[in-house]
């Protein structure tokens, strides 16, 4: 059995709302698979279905060769899960809570909890109720990784982590992959998981609208650019001539132009176009997938 996760027509409806509409997906053993999509796309629904926290309206899922419902606790022992909305409460310390989860999972090798906590910079002696969001997220990560499960299901694992800890998280994922563990993770932006993922699927309104390697998706990535440029004629025309530019706005003030735009495609062209002007400030960031982009993916697919 080489498939870690398999979904066939997996569907979840809540009354008239469809959270997941017939998902077909296969994640191979040993693979790092990323699910990308804006909030409400159905990422959390997929993961909860795989852990038997909720049950499908139609279709089926197979996790490590078992139906999540039939696999029961024996199956979940082989999975490490980080919920998207992680809530930790109680008067216990982070260390005590982690040991409790370790006992539920049937034991954790000595020193593992301390090892991962140290890598992420988590103080185990602090009380969980008093931890910041980022530190709670670290507790969630430790409990997912500590029993070295065959499959890791991580819902928005990088949320709330500062960039340095994000890097350490990615190295935990690489180590897991090196040991042969499968990692199924999600994010609302590609940039936070692209270094770790082998393959990526884009989920939108409960449908998988794109599936491919990280490189393919990177090329089609939306970027938002904000820049300040010395006023000079021909700026607008030059930017518009690139094509694939949306939401262009130019505000001129005191001989400077503040510009914002959304850009998708060949970055080289954007840089070379801008280089013809005197750039005073430049900020380039990844944009959460917008409906317009998603429609474009759809059109390409059909």
């Amino acid at each position: 059995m080489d498939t870690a996760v398999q979904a066939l027509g997996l569907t979840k409806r809540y009354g008239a709302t469809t959270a997941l509409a017939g998902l077909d997906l296969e994640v191979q053993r040993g693979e790092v698979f990323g699910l990308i999509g804006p909030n409400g796309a159905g990422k959390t629904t997929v993961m909860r279905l795989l852990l038997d926290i909720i049950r499908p309206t139609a279709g089926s899922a197979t996790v490590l060769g078992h139906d999540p419902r039939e696999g029961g606790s024996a199956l979940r022992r082989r999975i490490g899960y980080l919920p998207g909305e992680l809530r930790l409460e109680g008067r216990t310390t982070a260390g005590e809570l982690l040991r409790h989860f370790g006992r539920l999972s049937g034991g954790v090798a000595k020193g593992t909890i301390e090892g991962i906590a140290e890598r992420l910079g988590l103080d185990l002696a602090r009380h969980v109720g008093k931890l910041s969001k980022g530190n709670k997220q670290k507790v969630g990560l430790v409990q997912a990784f500590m029993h070295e499960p065959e499959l890791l299901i991580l819902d928005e694992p990088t949320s709330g982590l500062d960039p340095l800890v994000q890097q350490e998280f990615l190295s935990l994922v690489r180590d897991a992959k090196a040991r042969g563990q499968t990692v199924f993770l999600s994010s609302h932006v590609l940039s936070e998981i692209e270094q770790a993922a082998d393959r990526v699927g884009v989920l939108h309104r409960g449908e998988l609208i794109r599936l491919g390697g990280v490189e393919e998706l990177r090329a089609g990535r939306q970027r938002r650019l904000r820049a300040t440029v010395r006023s000079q004629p021909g700026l607008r025309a030059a930017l518009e001539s690139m094509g694939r530019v949306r939401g262009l706005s130019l505000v001129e003030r005191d001989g400077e132009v503040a510009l914002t735009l959304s850009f998708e495609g060949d970055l080289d062209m954007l840089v070379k176009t801008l280089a013809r002007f005197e750039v005073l400030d430049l900020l380039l960031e990844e944009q959460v997938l917008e409906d317009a982009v998603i429609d474009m993916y759809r059109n390409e697919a059909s």
Partner: protein
Amino acid sequence: MNLYRRELREGRRGLLGWAIGVAAAVLLYMPFYPSVGGPELTQTYIDMFPPELAALFALEGLASGPGYAQSTYFGLLGFLLISIAAIGWGSRAVAGAEDSGTLELTLAHAVTRWQVVLETALALLTRVAALCVVGSVLVWALNGPAQLGIEPTRLLAVTLALFLLTSVTGLAALFGGAVSGRPAVATGLGALVAVAAYVLDAVARLAGAPWLARLSPYHWAYGSDPITAGFDLGGAAALAAAMAALVLLSGWRFSRRDVGTA
């Protein structure tokens, strides 16, 4: 039994608080039996009240030590305090943990839904039993000094009745949470069972309708007056059956529904 142990460890402070409350109830009422109870004084109260009210509050019970302990503590304050504590625990067991979002992570581990219901129910029963024991140990300690004259086995019988009765209200709350996932529904159902049990019994006595009392868990516990008559196996069996039904229905329903979407 990891969930059971954790539930007890997390709840130890709350349990201590409720134990102090129960102890206070016993210590505030029992020592005063010699000054407010007894046959002559009681007749004075009964004459003061309209007959319906006297019947509602079972004032004739104040005439004897056991009757006094029954009317003040076992039938009223003890029942009230321990029921409230049990309903709180029952509501938190599934619905509270689900509502706060902590249940999702627990269920993602190697535990079953049945295990969650059974272990939290057992933790609830353990704590209810602890409160009942605290109350009755103090009643026993004051039995001599306050001239209550309660027989030891009868004290055991009424303690068992109190334990079973308050467990039913707590498990009703757990059941409400297992079905709905909502703390308000859980607490509401527990409170409804407790109030309905008390009111049905009282109304049955007022209206002289014994068939009505048969519907009331309060009557199953205290209808045969265990503090003077001793163990009532039929009543205890009815309460135990209700507890078992609530636990089984909770586990059955909780195993079949989505978690965290209420």
